[in-house]
Protein backbone atom coordinates (compact mmCIF):
# COMPACT_ATOMS: atom_id res chain seq x y z
CA UNK A 1 0.00 0.00 0.00
CA UNK A 2 2.92 2.23 0.60
CA UNK A 3 4.04 1.69 -2.96
CA UNK A 4 0.87 3.16 -4.36
CA UNK A 5 1.28 6.48 -2.64
CA UNK A 6 4.60 7.12 -4.34
CA UNK A 7 4.54 5.91 -7.92
CA UNK A 8 1.50 7.75 -9.30
CA UNK A 9 2.73 11.01 -7.78
CA UNK A 10 5.52 11.30 -10.33
CA UNK A 11 3.74 10.95 -13.68
CA UNK A 12 0.63 12.88 -12.70
CA UNK A 13 2.23 16.35 -12.28
CA UNK A 14 4.39 15.60 -15.31
CA UNK A 15 1.29 15.20 -17.43
CA UNK A 16 0.09 18.69 -16.52
CA UNK A 17 3.56 20.06 -17.13
CA UNK A 18 3.59 18.64 -20.63
CA UNK A 19 0.25 20.10 -21.40
CA UNK A 20 1.32 23.53 -20.22
CA UNK A 21 4.62 23.58 -22.11
CA UNK A 22 4.91 20.93 -24.80
CA UNK A 23 8.63 21.43 -25.33
CA UNK A 24 9.53 21.01 -21.70
CA UNK A 25 11.59 17.91 -20.91
CA UNK A 26 9.34 14.95 -20.31
CA UNK A 27 9.49 13.27 -16.95
CA UNK A 28 11.21 10.16 -18.27
CA UNK A 29 14.00 12.29 -19.71
CA UNK A 30 14.87 13.74 -16.29
CA UNK A 31 17.93 11.71 -15.30
CA UNK A 32 17.61 12.46 -11.58
CA UNK A 33 13.95 11.54 -11.48
CA UNK A 34 14.47 8.38 -13.49
CA UNK A 35 17.43 7.25 -11.39
CA UNK A 36 15.44 7.90 -8.22
CA UNK A 37 12.38 6.05 -9.49
CA UNK A 38 14.50 3.06 -10.52
CA UNK A 39 16.26 2.90 -7.14
CA UNK A 40 13.05 3.22 -5.14
CA UNK A 41 11.22 0.86 -7.53
CA UNK A 42 13.83 -1.87 -6.99
CA UNK A 43 13.83 -1.38 -3.22
CA UNK A 44 10.04 -1.42 -3.00
CA UNK A 45 9.83 -4.49 -5.22
CA UNK A 46 12.35 -6.42 -3.13
CA UNK A 47 10.68 -5.41 0.10
CA UNK A 48 7.17 -6.24 -1.06
CA UNK A 49 8.22 -9.50 -2.72
CA UNK A 50 10.31 -10.48 0.32
CA UNK A 51 8.58 -13.85 0.87
CA UNK A 52 9.34 -14.81 -2.75
CA UNK A 53 12.97 -13.72 -2.59
CA UNK A 54 14.06 -15.22 0.71
CA UNK A 55 12.98 -18.58 2.11
CA UNK A 56 13.85 -17.63 5.70
CA UNK A 57 11.48 -16.22 8.28
CA UNK A 58 13.09 -13.03 9.64
CA UNK A 59 12.17 -13.89 13.24
CA UNK A 60 13.11 -17.58 13.34
CA UNK A 61 16.13 -18.06 15.57
CA UNK A 62 18.58 -20.85 14.93
CA UNK A 63 21.04 -20.97 17.78
CA UNK A 64 23.07 -23.61 15.96
CA UNK A 65 23.85 -21.14 13.21
CA UNK A 66 24.73 -17.86 14.93
CA UNK A 67 26.99 -15.22 13.35
CA UNK A 68 27.57 -17.17 10.14
CA UNK A 69 29.53 -15.47 7.39
CA UNK A 70 27.84 -14.77 4.07
CA UNK A 71 27.31 -17.96 2.05
CA UNK A 72 25.12 -19.38 -0.68
CA UNK A 73 22.47 -20.26 1.93
CA UNK A 74 22.64 -17.04 3.92
CA UNK A 75 23.58 -14.31 1.46
CA UNK A 76 24.48 -11.87 4.22
CA UNK A 77 25.17 -14.40 6.94
CA UNK A 78 23.23 -14.65 10.18
CA UNK A 79 23.02 -12.46 13.26
CA UNK A 80 23.79 -13.18 16.91
CA UNK A 81 20.55 -15.15 17.25
CA UNK A 82 21.01 -17.14 14.07
CA UNK A 83 18.44 -15.18 12.08
CA UNK A 84 19.06 -14.70 8.36
CA UNK A 85 20.38 -11.14 7.87
CA UNK A 86 19.20 -10.76 4.27
CA UNK A 87 15.72 -11.81 5.25
CA UNK A 88 15.67 -9.37 8.19
CA UNK A 89 16.90 -6.66 5.85
CA UNK A 90 13.96 -7.16 3.48
CA UNK A 91 11.33 -7.52 6.18
CA UNK A 92 12.91 -4.63 8.10
CA UNK A 93 12.40 -2.53 4.99
CA UNK A 94 8.73 -3.46 5.08
CA UNK A 95 8.45 -2.12 8.61
CA UNK A 96 10.52 1.03 8.14
CA UNK A 97 9.20 2.06 4.74
CA UNK A 98 5.59 1.36 5.68
CA UNK A 99 5.90 3.53 8.78
CA UNK A 100 7.82 6.25 6.91
CA UNK A 101 5.31 6.43 4.05
CA UNK A 102 2.35 6.50 6.44
CA UNK A 103 4.06 8.90 8.82
CA UNK A 104 4.58 11.48 6.08
CA UNK A 105 0.85 11.64 5.32
CA UNK A 106 -0.24 13.11 8.67
CA UNK A 107 2.07 16.14 8.77
CA UNK A 108 1.44 16.62 5.03
CA UNK A 109 -2.32 16.81 5.59
CA UNK A 110 -2.17 18.85 8.80
CA UNK A 111 0.48 21.25 7.51
CA UNK A 112 -1.24 21.77 4.18
CA UNK A 113 -4.55 22.47 5.91
CA UNK A 114 -3.11 24.92 8.45
CA UNK A 115 -0.89 26.55 5.83
CA UNK A 116 -3.83 27.12 3.48
CA UNK A 117 -5.98 28.57 6.23
CA UNK A 118 -3.15 30.87 7.36
CA UNK A 119 -2.36 32.02 3.85
CA UNK A 120 -5.93 32.42 2.67
CA UNK A 121 -7.47 34.21 5.64
CA UNK A 122 -4.41 36.12 6.88
CA UNK A 123 -4.95 38.35 9.91
CA UNK A 124 -4.93 36.88 13.39
CA UNK A 125 -5.40 33.30 12.16
CA UNK A 126 -2.21 33.65 10.14
CA UNK A 127 -0.42 35.30 13.06
CA UNK A 128 -1.43 32.53 15.44
CA UNK A 129 -0.51 29.66 13.14
CA UNK A 130 2.80 31.19 12.12
CA UNK A 131 3.78 31.84 15.76
CA UNK A 132 3.02 28.18 16.42
CA UNK A 133 5.29 27.31 13.48
CA UNK A 134 8.07 29.49 14.96
CA UNK A 135 7.78 27.69 18.27
CA UNK A 136 7.93 24.17 16.85
CA UNK A 137 10.76 25.14 14.49
CA UNK A 138 12.73 26.38 17.50
CA UNK A 139 13.30 22.82 18.65
CA UNK A 140 15.92 20.76 16.87
CA UNK A 141 14.00 18.11 14.87
CA UNK A 142 15.66 15.08 16.43
CA UNK A 143 15.64 16.50 19.95
CA UNK A 144 11.90 17.11 19.89
CA UNK A 145 11.10 13.78 18.20
CA UNK A 146 13.23 11.84 20.66
CA UNK A 147 11.80 13.71 23.65
CA UNK A 148 8.21 13.24 22.44
CA UNK A 149 8.59 9.51 21.77
CA UNK A 150 10.30 9.18 25.13
CA UNK A 151 7.36 10.71 27.00
CA UNK A 152 4.72 8.98 24.88
CA UNK A 153 6.41 5.59 25.29
CA UNK A 154 8.22 3.61 22.60
CA UNK A 155 6.39 2.16 19.60
CA UNK A 156 4.83 2.84 16.25
CA UNK A 157 1.92 4.97 17.49
CA UNK A 158 4.26 7.35 19.30
CA UNK A 159 6.37 7.69 16.15
CA UNK A 160 3.32 8.79 14.16
CA UNK A 161 2.27 11.29 16.82
CA UNK A 162 5.77 12.73 17.23
CA UNK A 163 6.44 13.06 13.50
CA UNK A 164 3.05 14.71 12.97
CA UNK A 165 3.51 17.19 15.81
CA UNK A 166 6.98 18.17 14.60
CA UNK A 167 6.73 17.71 10.83
CA UNK A 168 3.64 19.75 9.92
CA UNK A 169 5.43 23.09 10.20
CA UNK A 170 7.42 22.80 6.97
CA UNK A 171 4.31 22.01 4.95
CA UNK A 172 2.45 24.87 6.59
CA UNK A 173 5.25 27.30 5.65
CA UNK A 174 5.49 26.07 2.06
CA UNK A 175 1.74 26.00 1.39
CA UNK A 176 1.13 29.35 3.09
CA UNK A 177 3.77 30.99 0.91
CA UNK A 178 2.28 29.52 -2.25
CA UNK A 179 -1.27 30.47 -1.27
CA UNK A 180 -0.23 34.06 -0.53
CA UNK A 181 0.85 34.39 -4.16
CA UNK A 182 -1.94 32.35 -5.72
CA UNK A 183 -4.84 34.00 -3.91
CA UNK A 184 -4.26 37.30 -5.73
CA UNK A 185 -4.72 35.76 -9.15
CA UNK A 186 -7.75 36.26 -11.32
CA UNK A 187 -9.21 32.79 -11.09
CA UNK A 188 -9.45 33.13 -7.32
CA UNK A 189 -10.94 36.59 -7.53
CA UNK A 190 -13.42 35.22 -10.06
CA UNK A 191 -14.35 32.36 -7.76
CA UNK A 192 -14.73 34.80 -4.87
CA UNK A 193 -16.98 37.15 -6.80
CA UNK A 194 -18.93 34.11 -7.95
CA UNK A 195 -19.86 33.65 -4.31
CA UNK A 196 -18.14 30.32 -3.76
CA UNK A 197 -17.44 29.39 -0.16
CA UNK A 198 -13.91 29.83 1.18
CA UNK A 199 -13.60 26.11 1.82
CA UNK A 200 -14.53 25.33 -1.78
CA UNK A 201 -12.14 27.94 -3.18
CA UNK A 202 -9.30 26.59 -1.08
CA UNK A 203 -9.97 22.92 -1.75
CA UNK A 204 -11.02 23.01 -5.40
CA UNK A 205 -9.21 26.02 -6.83
CA UNK A 206 -6.18 26.90 -4.74
CA UNK A 207 -4.89 23.58 -3.44
CA UNK A 208 -4.44 21.84 -6.81
CA UNK A 209 -2.28 24.80 -7.85
CA UNK A 210 -0.08 24.93 -4.79
CA UNK A 211 0.20 21.31 -3.72
CA UNK A 212 3.13 20.37 -6.02
CA UNK A 213 5.67 22.19 -3.85
CA UNK A 214 4.40 20.32 -0.81
CA UNK A 215 4.66 17.01 -2.69
CA UNK A 216 8.26 17.78 -3.70
CA UNK A 217 9.08 18.57 -0.10
CA UNK A 218 7.37 15.36 1.02
CA UNK A 219 10.06 13.36 -0.82
CA UNK A 220 12.84 14.82 1.30
CA UNK A 221 10.58 14.63 4.32
CA UNK A 222 10.24 10.85 3.91
CA UNK A 223 14.04 10.68 4.03
CA UNK A 224 13.97 12.61 7.32
CA UNK A 225 11.25 10.29 8.64
CA UNK A 226 13.22 7.16 7.74
CA UNK A 227 16.22 8.64 9.54
CA UNK A 228 14.06 9.48 12.55
CA UNK A 229 12.59 5.96 12.65
CA UNK A 230 15.94 4.16 12.43
CA UNK A 231 17.50 6.58 14.92
CA UNK A 232 14.69 6.00 17.40
CA UNK A 233 14.99 2.25 16.89
CA UNK A 234 18.75 2.47 17.35
CA UNK A 235 18.09 4.15 20.70
CA UNK A 236 15.54 1.45 21.58
CA UNK A 237 12.61 3.89 21.39
CA UNK A 238 11.25 2.95 17.98
CA UNK A 239 10.30 -0.42 16.52
CA UNK A 240 10.33 -2.92 19.33
CA UNK A 241 12.13 -6.26 18.98
CA UNK A 242 11.69 -8.88 17.65
CA UNK A 243 10.09 -7.00 14.73
CA UNK A 244 12.82 -6.58 12.10
CA UNK A 245 13.95 -3.02 11.42
CA UNK A 246 17.07 -1.39 9.99
CA UNK A 247 17.81 0.73 13.07
CA UNK A 248 17.70 -2.23 15.45
CA UNK A 249 19.84 -4.25 13.04
CA UNK A 250 22.53 -1.55 13.05
CA UNK A 251 22.31 -1.32 16.82
CA UNK A 252 22.51 -5.12 17.33
CA UNK A 253 25.36 -5.44 14.86
CA UNK A 254 27.55 -2.75 16.41
CA UNK A 255 28.89 -5.22 19.00
CA UNK A 256 30.29 -7.36 16.18
CA UNK A 257 31.50 -4.55 13.96
CA UNK A 258 35.15 -5.64 13.89
CA UNK A 259 34.36 -9.29 13.18
CA UNK A 260 31.04 -9.26 11.30
CA UNK A 261 30.98 -5.86 9.65
CA UNK A 262 28.10 -6.72 7.31
CA UNK A 263 25.59 -6.86 10.19
CA UNK A 264 25.89 -3.10 10.70
CA UNK A 265 27.20 -1.83 7.40
CA UNK A 266 24.63 -3.32 5.05
CA UNK A 267 21.45 -2.04 6.78
CA UNK A 268 23.03 1.42 6.96
CA UNK A 269 23.92 1.33 3.27
CA UNK A 270 20.35 0.37 2.44
CA UNK A 271 19.11 3.40 4.39
CA UNK A 272 21.58 5.61 2.51
CA UNK A 273 20.54 4.24 -0.90
CA UNK A 274 16.84 4.61 -0.06
CA UNK A 275 17.48 8.19 1.01
CA UNK A 276 19.43 8.85 -2.19
CA UNK A 277 16.59 7.47 -4.31
CA UNK A 278 13.98 9.62 -2.61
CA UNK A 279 16.20 12.74 -2.76
CA UNK A 280 16.75 12.17 -6.48
CA UNK A 281 13.00 11.86 -7.02
CA UNK A 282 12.48 15.09 -5.07
CA UNK A 283 15.20 16.90 -7.05
CA UNK A 284 13.93 15.57 -10.35
CA UNK A 285 10.37 16.63 -9.57
CA UNK A 286 11.59 20.07 -8.55
CA UNK A 287 13.54 20.46 -11.81
CA UNK A 288 10.50 19.33 -13.75
CA UNK A 289 8.25 21.85 -12.02
CA UNK A 290 10.66 24.78 -12.12
CA UNK A 291 12.85 24.46 -15.21
CA UNK A 292 15.85 26.77 -15.29
CA UNK A 293 15.95 26.99 -11.52
CA UNK A 294 18.10 23.96 -10.81
Amino acid at each position, binding site marked *: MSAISLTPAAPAPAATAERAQPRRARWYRQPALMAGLVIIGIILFMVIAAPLITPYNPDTQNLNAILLSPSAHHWLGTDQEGRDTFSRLLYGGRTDLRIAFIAVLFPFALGTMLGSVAGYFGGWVDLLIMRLVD*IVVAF*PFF*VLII*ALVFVLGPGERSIYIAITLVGWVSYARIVRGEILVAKRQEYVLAAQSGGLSSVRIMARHLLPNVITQAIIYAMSDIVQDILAIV*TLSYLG*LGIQPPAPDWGTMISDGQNFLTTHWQLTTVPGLVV*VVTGLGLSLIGDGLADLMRPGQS
Partner: protein
Amino acid sequence: MGRMTFVYRRLLLLIPTVLGVTIITFFMIHLIPGDPARTILGIHATPRAVAILHREWGLNRPLASQYWLFMDRLVHGNLGTSLYYGVSVSSLITSHLPATLWLICYAAALAIVISVPLAMIAASRKNAVRDHVVRVVPLLGLGMPAFWLALILQTEFAVRFRLFPVTGYGTGFVGHLHSMFLPALTVAVALCPVVIRSLRASMLNVLGADFVTTARAKGVPAPRLFVRHVLRNAVIPAVTVLGINIGFLIGGTVIVESVFAVDGVGYLMINSIFQRDFPVVQGVALIFGIMVVVVNLLTDVAYASLDPRVRFDR
Protein backbone atom coordinates in the same frame (compact mmCIF):
# COMPACT_ATOMS: atom_id res chain seq x y z
CA MET B 1 10.98 49.92 7.89
CA GLY B 2 14.31 51.05 9.32
CA ARG B 3 17.10 48.87 10.52
CA MET B 4 16.49 49.42 14.22
CA THR B 5 12.75 48.91 13.84
CA PHE B 6 13.54 45.57 12.24
CA VAL B 7 15.75 44.60 15.17
CA TYR B 8 13.13 45.70 17.73
CA ARG B 9 10.42 43.85 15.85
CA ARG B 10 12.54 40.71 15.80
CA LEU B 11 13.20 41.08 19.53
CA LEU B 12 9.47 41.49 20.21
CA LEU B 13 8.69 38.38 18.20
CA LEU B 14 11.22 36.57 20.39
CA ILE B 15 8.94 36.86 23.42
CA PRO B 16 5.99 34.77 22.18
CA THR B 17 8.39 32.22 20.68
CA VAL B 18 10.37 31.75 23.89
CA LEU B 19 7.11 31.59 25.88
CA GLY B 20 5.85 28.98 23.42
CA VAL B 21 9.04 26.96 23.84
CA THR B 22 8.53 26.95 27.61
CA ILE B 23 4.87 25.95 27.22
CA ILE B 24 5.75 22.99 24.98
CA THR B 25 8.45 21.73 27.35
CA PHE B 26 6.09 22.26 30.27
CA PHE B 27 3.36 20.21 28.61
CA MET B 28 5.71 17.33 27.89
CA ILE B 29 5.10 15.77 31.29
CA HIS B 30 1.38 15.87 30.63
CA LEU B 31 1.86 13.76 27.52
CA ILE B 32 3.07 10.92 29.71
CA PRO B 33 0.31 8.32 29.79
CA GLY B 34 -1.22 7.82 33.25
CA ASP B 35 0.15 9.49 36.37
CA PRO B 36 3.41 11.16 35.26
CA ALA B 37 5.00 10.86 38.70
CA ARG B 38 4.24 7.16 38.94
CA THR B 39 5.37 6.45 35.37
CA ILE B 40 8.61 8.38 35.78
CA LEU B 41 9.52 6.79 39.09
CA GLY B 42 8.78 3.30 37.81
CA ILE B 43 6.90 0.36 39.25
CA HIS B 44 9.00 0.11 42.39
CA ALA B 45 8.31 3.69 43.50
CA THR B 46 7.19 4.18 47.06
CA PRO B 47 3.97 6.17 47.59
CA ARG B 48 6.08 8.70 49.50
CA ALA B 49 8.38 9.32 46.53
CA VAL B 50 5.37 9.73 44.25
CA ALA B 51 3.83 12.21 46.69
CA ILE B 52 7.08 14.21 46.86
CA LEU B 53 7.24 14.48 43.07
CA HIS B 54 3.57 15.46 42.98
CA ARG B 55 4.24 18.26 45.42
CA GLU B 56 7.45 19.38 43.71
CA TRP B 57 5.80 19.70 40.31
CA GLY B 58 2.49 20.85 41.77
CA LEU B 59 0.74 18.07 39.85
CA ASN B 60 -2.41 18.31 42.00
CA ARG B 61 -2.84 22.00 41.25
CA PRO B 62 -4.68 23.48 38.27
CA LEU B 63 -2.72 23.56 35.01
CA ALA B 64 -2.28 27.34 34.94
CA SER B 65 -0.87 27.37 38.43
CA GLN B 66 1.48 24.49 37.55
CA TYR B 67 2.79 26.50 34.61
CA TRP B 68 3.20 29.54 36.83
CA LEU B 69 5.24 27.46 39.26
CA PHE B 70 7.35 26.13 36.34
CA MET B 71 7.98 29.64 35.00
CA ASP B 72 8.68 31.08 38.44
CA ARG B 73 11.42 28.50 38.92
CA LEU B 74 12.67 28.93 35.38
CA VAL B 75 13.28 32.67 35.65
CA HIS B 76 15.25 31.94 38.80
CA GLY B 77 17.42 29.54 36.80
CA ASN B 78 15.86 26.49 38.42
CA LEU B 79 15.20 23.70 35.92
CA GLY B 80 14.38 21.16 38.61
CA THR B 81 16.42 18.36 40.14
CA SER B 82 17.73 15.33 38.33
CA LEU B 83 16.07 12.15 39.57
CA TYR B 84 19.16 10.08 38.79
CA TYR B 85 22.10 12.31 39.68
CA GLY B 86 20.28 14.12 42.48
CA VAL B 87 21.78 17.50 41.51
CA SER B 88 20.19 20.49 39.84
CA VAL B 89 19.47 20.13 36.14
CA SER B 90 20.92 23.56 35.37
CA SER B 91 24.29 22.64 36.87
CA LEU B 92 24.29 19.39 34.88
CA ILE B 93 23.59 21.23 31.66
CA THR B 94 26.17 23.93 32.39
CA SER B 95 28.87 21.35 32.97
CA HIS B 96 28.03 19.49 29.76
CA LEU B 97 27.60 22.54 27.57
CA PRO B 98 31.27 23.24 26.65
CA ALA B 99 31.73 19.91 24.87
CA THR B 100 28.56 20.44 22.84
CA LEU B 101 29.46 24.02 21.89
CA TRP B 102 32.88 22.76 20.83
CA LEU B 103 31.33 20.08 18.69
CA ILE B 104 28.86 22.51 17.09
CA CYS B 105 31.57 25.03 16.17
CA TYR B 106 33.98 22.34 15.00
CA ALA B 107 31.31 20.70 12.84
CA ALA B 108 30.27 24.04 11.36
CA ALA B 109 33.91 24.84 10.56
CA LEU B 110 34.46 21.44 8.94
CA ALA B 111 31.24 21.82 6.96
CA ILE B 112 32.51 25.13 5.56
CA VAL B 113 35.96 23.68 4.82
CA ILE B 114 34.42 20.75 2.93
CA SER B 115 31.64 22.68 1.21
CA VAL B 116 33.45 25.75 -0.12
CA PRO B 117 35.88 23.95 -2.46
CA LEU B 118 33.19 21.53 -3.63
CA ALA B 119 30.74 24.34 -4.33
CA MET B 120 33.50 26.20 -6.20
CA ILE B 121 34.22 23.14 -8.32
CA ALA B 122 30.53 22.74 -9.10
CA ALA B 123 29.90 26.39 -9.83
CA SER B 124 33.03 26.82 -11.95
CA ARG B 125 31.24 25.15 -14.83
CA LYS B 126 27.49 24.82 -14.59
CA ASN B 127 25.99 21.52 -15.80
CA ALA B 128 29.41 19.99 -16.51
CA VAL B 129 30.11 16.49 -15.26
CA ARG B 130 31.87 17.81 -12.15
CA ASP B 131 28.81 19.94 -11.39
CA HIS B 132 26.51 16.91 -11.54
CA VAL B 133 28.90 14.84 -9.42
CA VAL B 134 29.10 17.53 -6.74
CA ARG B 135 25.33 17.86 -6.78
CA VAL B 136 24.58 14.15 -6.47
CA VAL B 137 27.28 12.82 -4.12
CA PRO B 138 26.27 14.97 -1.11
CA LEU B 139 22.73 13.60 -1.48
CA LEU B 140 24.22 10.44 0.01
CA GLY B 141 24.91 12.41 3.18
CA LEU B 142 21.33 13.62 3.32
CA GLY B 143 19.91 10.16 3.91
CA MET B 144 22.76 8.83 6.03
CA PRO B 145 21.94 7.92 9.62
CA ALA B 146 24.43 9.90 11.71
CA PHE B 147 24.86 7.14 14.28
CA TRP B 148 25.69 4.66 11.53
CA LEU B 149 28.35 6.88 9.95
CA ALA B 150 29.70 7.52 13.44
CA LEU B 151 30.01 3.77 14.09
CA ILE B 152 31.74 3.15 10.76
CA LEU B 153 34.21 6.04 11.18
CA GLN B 154 34.87 4.96 14.73
CA THR B 155 35.59 1.35 13.75
CA GLU B 156 37.78 2.23 10.78
CA PHE B 157 39.76 5.27 11.90
CA ALA B 158 39.80 4.87 15.66
CA VAL B 159 39.72 1.12 16.30
CA ARG B 160 41.46 -0.26 13.21
CA PHE B 161 43.95 2.45 12.24
CA ARG B 162 44.16 4.07 15.70
CA LEU B 163 44.36 7.53 14.18
CA PHE B 164 41.93 9.05 16.67
CA PRO B 165 40.72 8.21 20.16
CA VAL B 166 37.68 5.92 20.15
CA THR B 167 35.69 8.03 22.61
CA GLY B 168 35.90 11.16 24.71
CA TYR B 169 36.44 14.88 24.46
CA GLY B 170 40.20 15.15 25.00
CA THR B 171 42.07 17.74 27.02
CA GLY B 172 43.39 21.11 25.92
CA PHE B 173 42.78 22.78 22.57
CA VAL B 174 44.82 20.33 20.50
CA GLY B 175 43.36 17.40 22.43
CA HIS B 176 39.83 18.59 21.67
CA LEU B 177 40.70 19.10 18.01
CA HIS B 178 42.11 15.59 17.82
CA SER B 179 39.45 13.73 19.84
CA MET B 180 36.49 15.52 18.33
CA PHE B 181 37.54 15.22 14.70
CA LEU B 182 35.46 12.13 13.93
CA PRO B 183 32.34 13.33 15.80
CA ALA B 184 32.57 16.74 14.11
CA LEU B 185 33.11 15.12 10.71
CA THR B 186 30.00 12.98 11.20
CA VAL B 187 27.87 16.02 11.96
CA ALA B 188 29.46 17.97 9.11
CA VAL B 189 28.69 15.24 6.54
CA ALA B 190 24.98 15.59 7.29
CA LEU B 191 25.21 19.36 7.03
CA CYS B 192 27.29 19.57 3.83
CA PRO B 193 24.54 18.79 1.30
CA VAL B 194 22.54 21.79 2.49
CA VAL B 195 25.53 24.13 2.59
CA ILE B 196 26.96 23.01 -0.75
CA ARG B 197 23.62 23.46 -2.44
CA SER B 198 23.08 27.02 -1.28
CA LEU B 199 26.73 27.97 -1.71
CA ARG B 200 26.69 26.71 -5.30
CA ALA B 201 23.51 28.63 -6.02
CA SER B 202 24.87 31.87 -4.56
CA MET B 203 28.22 31.43 -6.38
CA LEU B 204 26.40 31.00 -9.69
CA ASN B 205 24.50 34.15 -8.82
CA VAL B 206 27.66 36.10 -8.09
CA LEU B 207 29.40 34.71 -11.20
CA GLY B 208 26.70 36.33 -13.30
CA ALA B 209 27.15 39.72 -11.65
CA ASP B 210 28.57 42.71 -13.52
CA PHE B 211 31.56 43.16 -11.25
CA VAL B 212 32.72 39.64 -12.07
CA THR B 213 32.44 40.36 -15.79
CA THR B 214 34.45 43.55 -15.22
CA ALA B 215 37.12 41.67 -13.30
CA ARG B 216 37.30 39.07 -16.05
CA ALA B 217 37.59 41.78 -18.67
CA LYS B 218 40.44 43.34 -16.69
CA GLY B 219 42.20 40.00 -16.96
CA VAL B 220 42.05 38.91 -13.32
CA PRO B 221 43.27 35.29 -13.24
CA ALA B 222 40.60 32.70 -12.47
CA PRO B 223 41.84 31.53 -9.02
CA ARG B 224 42.17 35.12 -7.82
CA LEU B 225 38.76 35.95 -9.24
CA PHE B 226 37.21 33.08 -7.34
CA VAL B 227 38.81 33.82 -4.01
CA ARG B 228 38.71 37.62 -4.01
CA HIS B 229 35.47 38.33 -5.81
CA VAL B 230 33.20 35.32 -5.85
CA LEU B 231 33.95 33.56 -2.58
CA ARG B 232 33.73 36.73 -0.52
CA ASN B 233 30.29 37.47 -1.79
CA ALA B 234 29.07 33.91 -1.64
CA VAL B 235 30.20 33.07 1.89
CA ILE B 236 27.68 35.30 3.67
CA PRO B 237 24.75 33.24 2.41
CA ALA B 238 26.58 30.06 3.43
CA VAL B 239 27.03 31.31 6.98
CA THR B 240 23.36 32.26 7.02
CA VAL B 241 22.46 28.76 5.92
CA LEU B 242 24.49 27.44 8.85
CA GLY B 243 22.64 29.80 11.19
CA ILE B 244 19.26 28.75 9.86
CA ASN B 245 20.20 25.10 10.21
CA ILE B 246 21.47 25.43 13.76
CA GLY B 247 18.58 23.24 14.92
CA PHE B 248 19.64 20.56 12.49
CA LEU B 249 23.24 20.97 13.65
CA ILE B 250 22.30 20.60 17.31
CA GLY B 251 20.03 17.66 16.56
CA GLY B 252 22.95 15.96 14.82
CA THR B 253 25.23 16.37 17.83
CA VAL B 254 22.82 14.53 20.15
CA ILE B 255 23.23 11.12 18.53
CA VAL B 256 26.87 11.56 17.56
CA GLU B 257 27.85 12.52 21.10
CA SER B 258 26.36 9.32 22.43
CA VAL B 259 28.17 7.12 19.90
CA PHE B 260 31.54 8.75 20.66
CA ALA B 261 30.76 9.22 24.37
CA VAL B 262 31.53 12.93 24.12
CA ASP B 263 30.34 14.23 27.46
CA GLY B 264 28.05 16.92 26.06
CA VAL B 265 24.44 17.91 26.51
CA GLY B 266 23.21 15.46 23.87
CA TYR B 267 24.95 12.58 25.60
CA LEU B 268 23.40 13.76 28.83
CA MET B 269 19.97 13.75 27.22
CA ILE B 270 20.28 10.24 25.75
CA ASN B 271 21.64 8.85 29.01
CA SER B 272 18.81 10.52 30.90
CA ILE B 273 16.32 8.86 28.57
CA PHE B 274 17.77 5.48 29.49
CA GLN B 275 17.60 6.44 33.19
CA ARG B 276 14.05 7.78 32.71
CA ASP B 277 15.35 11.00 34.23
CA PHE B 278 12.55 13.20 33.05
CA PRO B 279 13.57 16.63 34.43
CA VAL B 280 16.92 16.43 32.61
CA VAL B 281 15.31 15.52 29.26
CA GLN B 282 12.86 18.39 29.72
CA GLY B 283 15.64 20.81 30.68
CA VAL B 284 17.83 19.86 27.71
CA ALA B 285 14.92 20.22 25.25
CA LEU B 286 14.21 23.67 26.70
CA ILE B 287 17.84 24.82 26.52
CA PHE B 288 18.22 23.56 22.95
CA GLY B 289 14.98 25.29 21.95
CA ILE B 290 16.11 28.61 23.42
CA MET B 291 19.57 28.21 21.87
CA VAL B 292 18.04 27.81 18.41
CA VAL B 293 15.76 30.82 18.87
CA VAL B 294 18.67 33.03 19.94
CA VAL B 295 20.99 31.86 17.15
CA ASN B 296 18.26 32.41 14.56
CA LEU B 297 17.75 35.93 15.87
CA LEU B 298 21.49 36.65 15.76
CA THR B 299 21.69 35.26 12.20
CA ASP B 300 18.83 37.48 11.07
CA VAL B 301 20.24 40.59 12.68
CA ALA B 302 23.80 39.90 11.55
CA TYR B 303 22.64 39.23 8.01
CA ALA B 304 20.56 42.37 7.98
CA SER B 305 23.42 44.53 9.24
CA LEU B 306 26.07 42.95 6.99
CA ASP B 307 24.19 43.08 3.74
CA PRO B 308 22.89 46.54 2.85
CA ARG B 309 20.58 45.08 0.22
CA VAL B 310 18.41 43.26 2.78
CA ARG B 311 14.91 44.69 2.75
CA PHE B 312 13.28 45.10 6.10
CA ASP B 313 9.63 44.92 5.21
CA ARG B 314 8.26 41.43 5.28
